[in-house]
């Protein structure tokens, strides 16, 4: 008798809690996901899942790439699918976005990677949680990113975002009117930002130990996913073109930027012979500082001029 009613006796509360939570989550997933988006990455992933974006060219990239590509579309260039989102997703995010695109769309004729530096980033940015861990929550993505981050805690956080209630918690918090909602997904107060960036840059003893015990085959996580992207394109015979985004004139000539560019294009040069379908532009355009709103993004008033120049450039290379 005791064993027959085991699940209804003391100690089984956890079992029924799990049953109830799974039911609630299933219901929440179906009614929350189409209704609430937090940022451009959520929107893009939902779109890729539910709508057809079939185009001959796929344009991946960061937020500057997104600005320019959307302006180009505004001008009537519709031959490409604008999948550029944010540098926050790093190259790992670009790779997974491309895979998701391929699930529901035809193989494109060409992929353009329109971003500043696809080899830079170790998934340790301030907004990594919001843009990567919360958005890429398929089992394969969780497994791959966790392994590359060499951090089970990173994966555990991603797992928690498989719960619809966790993924859309900000939205759910806002539904209770009298509560002060902390914008946990939308940014960190200015005064804490610098401190947080510093702490993220500092390599802890744990990280140093892990990199000693489980060394990576590549310099950075972004480089690993860049190679994965190249492999995927080679496997499917899709040409991939890397186009760097524009910069401020005052920034481009600084010694560290020159060094960074040199390293980037030297690595690109090393990779090109192994990937015949891969090509890149080693020209980084620069504009006067007044063209930029925050040092990175382009002023709305200058966007049409900049996008026109890039449209001409891309038309020459990529337009079908």
């Amino acid at each position, binding site marked *: 008798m005791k064993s027959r009613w085991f699940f209804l006796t003391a100690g089984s*509360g956890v079992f029924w809690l799990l049953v109830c939570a799974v039911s609630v989550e299933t219901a929440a997933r179906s009614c929350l996901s189409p209704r609430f988006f937090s940022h451009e990455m959520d929107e893009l992933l939902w779109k890729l899942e539910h709508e057809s974006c079939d185009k001959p060219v796929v344009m991946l990239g960061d937020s500057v790439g997104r600005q320019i590509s959307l302006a180009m579309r505004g001008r009537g260039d519709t031959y490409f699918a604008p999948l550029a989102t944010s540098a926050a997703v790093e190259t790992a995010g670009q790779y997974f976005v491309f895979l998701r695109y391929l699930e529901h769309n035809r193989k494109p004729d060409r992929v353009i990677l329109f971003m500043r530096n696809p080899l830079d980033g170790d998934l340790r940015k301030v907004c990594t949680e919001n843009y990567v861990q919360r958005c890429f929550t398929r089992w394969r993505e969780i497994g791959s990113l966790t392994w590359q981050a060499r951090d089970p805690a990173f994966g555990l956080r991603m797992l928690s975002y498989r719960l619809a209630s966790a993924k859309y918690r900000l939205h759910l918090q806002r539904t209770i009117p009298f509560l002060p909602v902390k914008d946990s997904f939308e940014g960190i107060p200015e005064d804490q930002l610098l401190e947080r960036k510093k702490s993220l840059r500092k390599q802890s003893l744990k990280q140093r130990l892990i990199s000693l015990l489980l060394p990576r085959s590549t310099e950075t996580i972004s480089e690993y996913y860049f190679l994965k992207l190249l492999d995927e394109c080679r496997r499917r015979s899709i040409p991939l073109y890397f186009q760097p985004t524009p910069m401020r004139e005052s920034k481009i000539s600084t010694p560290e930027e020159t060094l960074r560019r040199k390293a980037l294009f030297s690595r690109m040069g090393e990779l090109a012979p192994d990937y015949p379908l891969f090509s890149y532009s080693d020209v980084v355009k620069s504009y006067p500082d007044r063209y930029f709103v925050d040092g990175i993004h382009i002023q709305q008033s200058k966007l049409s001029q900049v996008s026109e120049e890039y449209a001409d450039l891309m038309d020459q290379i990529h337009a079908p």
Partner: protein
Amino acid sequence: MLFNSAEFIIFFVVLYGLYVVLPHRPQNLLLLAGSYIFYAAWDWRFLSLILISTVIDYYCAHAIDRSDMPRRKKAFLTVSMVSNLGLLGIFKYSNFFVHSMISLLGRFGLEVQPLTLNIILPMGISFYTFQTMSYTIDVYRGQLKPAVNILDFALYVTLFPQLVAGPIERASNLFPQVIRPRKISRYGITHGAYLIFWGYFQKVFIADNIAPLVEKLFEGSAPYNGVHVLLGLYAFALQIYCDFAGYSNIARGLAFCMGFRFMLNFNLPYFATNPSDFWARWHISLSTWLRDYLYIPLGGNRKGTWFTYRNLALTMILGGLWHGAAWNFVLWGIYQGILLIGHRWYRAVRPFVAPAVPWKAAALRVLHTVAFFHLVCLGWLLFRAESLHQIGAMLSALFTGFVWPSQLVLEHLVAAILFFGGLMMVIEWFQFRSSDLYVVLKWPLPVRVAVYLLMFYGLVIFGVQDAQSFIYFQF
């Protein structure tokens, strides 16, 4: 590594997986290694302090036990006390004393160049120092045999659930559990899991959500509104209790799951009706430590009324100073001492006689509880305030600056306190009424699951996700 971080969850799952399959001796070695990793994750350099404390107390205890001469015993006890209190003094109090001295000399017109020591306060130093001191004192008193194996003793000092914020375990309770094989029972796991869940709920759902409201009040500047200050103090009372009791519950729950039994650290303290009752319910491991190793050796209540009052005052002032090297903690200690002395004096003059009529007795109890809760809140003002000037301004607002705030502000504060604290208040009321802290586990299944579900979604949707430090780590 904080209990409320993903790193800790993975750390514990891996450690526990190994722990359950290992026999007793390797279990101890695993726990010792795990405890050192747990502490080193915060700052590995300060492990040296724990090691120094461990080695000194281990050898001093043996020397005390071996010696037949009382003077020699006393000498080794002194070595242990001086080294433990010396470490505590250097790392916790040196800056405070230097700055206080400079300020005092400044008042007499003597200018002294400030000596900037810039010493980092090692996490949990007050907890493990008191724990090791209690061990040596117990050996000195002949109440405990010294540890045979230094690794067992090291585990007693560093056992990770209680290492950085207690409970301050006594050797007489914890040490036998370290040296004897432990049994992992179904009872231990169910009760442990419940305590862990409850602790996370208190910390992540209640304390961390209430914290910004409290910060806002104490970051503001005078003039204050009395209603705001009062509501802010209610919020802080909730925050500090849930923060600390949450940690203690998680620590006790983890220990339960591993077959240990830690002492109870909080027993519904806000249901206390007087100061003595409060200290029998709040931070029990510290209050009993202070009683056994300070109050009673000072003479306790054996030498007459005035000596008793002196001993109470000294104990509470040092208890206040234990919490932190700042004058507001000293003031808080003095205030607690005054409450205890006042209560003792009043009870001597007018012994308490409970009304014979049940409803009258109940009403009186409610009245005492509410009144004493407000006295506790007044103490929290001294505890939390950032300067003596702020204490003055807030006290003045509390007693003379009651201006009814806007409806919106009022609703916002009251609603947040009730929303985050409501479920806990209801559960604690049932715990109090049944005198059973595990009453939830005895409720009918549907009620239990509903409560778990509320707690679960409280954590998932409203839990603060950036792991926040526990307040008591700084002590």
